[in-house]
């Protein structure tokens, strides 16, 4: 067994870095939106959140409307050194959010309220943990997923 110490990942200097406070702010907005979705069971609102997740997953978390709000209204008020992070962890989290939003919307369109509630519940769980506790979804589930999928 030979080890690859050339980490393609997290630590090379080539990775794209973004302001780490942006995704955390976006997670707070997402938490609020998903909380309203969970109570109102609104298909329209989950569809809008789905679009936001899709932008975050494909274009990047710095391209979402929530990131725009952060840059426009929050960032100018923040001072001190800008904490940066690799763009890939929050982008991964947006992809997972997108999957839950798709399942939730499917539950809504197929009139399966339990599916809708469970999917939104999981998305809210992750978004809240991200916003309140700086929870790193990719850290906890990515390796497990790879271990299951790759033989």
């Amino acid at each position, binding site marked *: *067994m*030979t*080890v*690859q*110490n*050339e*980490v*393609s*990942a*997290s*630590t090379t200097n080539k990775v794209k870095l973004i302001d*780490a406070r942006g995704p955390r702010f976006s997670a707070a907005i997402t938490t609020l939106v998903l*909380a309203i979705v*969970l*109570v*109102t*069971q609104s298909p329209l609102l989950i569809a809008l959140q789905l679009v936001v997740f899709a932008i975050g997953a494909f274009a990047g978390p710095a391209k979402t409307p929530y990131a725009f709000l952060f840059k426009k209204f929050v960032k100018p008020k923040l001072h001190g050194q800008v904490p940066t*992070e*690799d763009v*890939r*962890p*929050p982008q*991964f*989290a947006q992809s997972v959010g997108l999957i839950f939003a798709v399942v939730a919307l499917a539950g809504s369109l197929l009139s399966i*309220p339990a599916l809708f*509630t469970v999917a*939104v*519940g999981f998305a*809210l*769980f992750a978004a*809240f*943990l991200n916003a*309140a*506790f700086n*929870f*790193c*979804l*990719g*850290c*906890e589930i*990515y*390796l*497990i997923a*790879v*271990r299951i999928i*790759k033989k």
Partner: protein
Amino acid sequence: MNSLTPLVVVLALAIAFGVWYTRSRGEFRRKKTVNGPKLDAAIIGIELGAAVTMVQFSSAFCSPCRATKALLEDMVKTMPDVHYAHIDAEANLELVRKLDVRSTPTTLFLNSDGVEVGRAMGTPKRSQVLAAVNAIR
């Protein structure tokens, strides 16, 4: 079905999990028995430290991995008997399975024989790393 129940349940579970998560990240957990596989330079890519070797597993979708790497690289500079290895978990799945690494960053603390004494998941504090190293030395 406009009900507050699902919201309250999800938030309560998330707060409970979040408190546990925050407390447990970085904590050095000793293995109950030291009977794991013996690791050596051929496996981890660097020579074992005279006293302790820290082996960090990282992945691409992991923000705290960078902070952990920076901390541990900095700490071994002043500890000549402690070595540090950094391993890409995804590129070394066989090793990851053998050692049952489940999340990133996970840092294994090996004794001078190259056997795991314990591990820490998440970014440890400087004091937690020092305590773990001193407990093994």
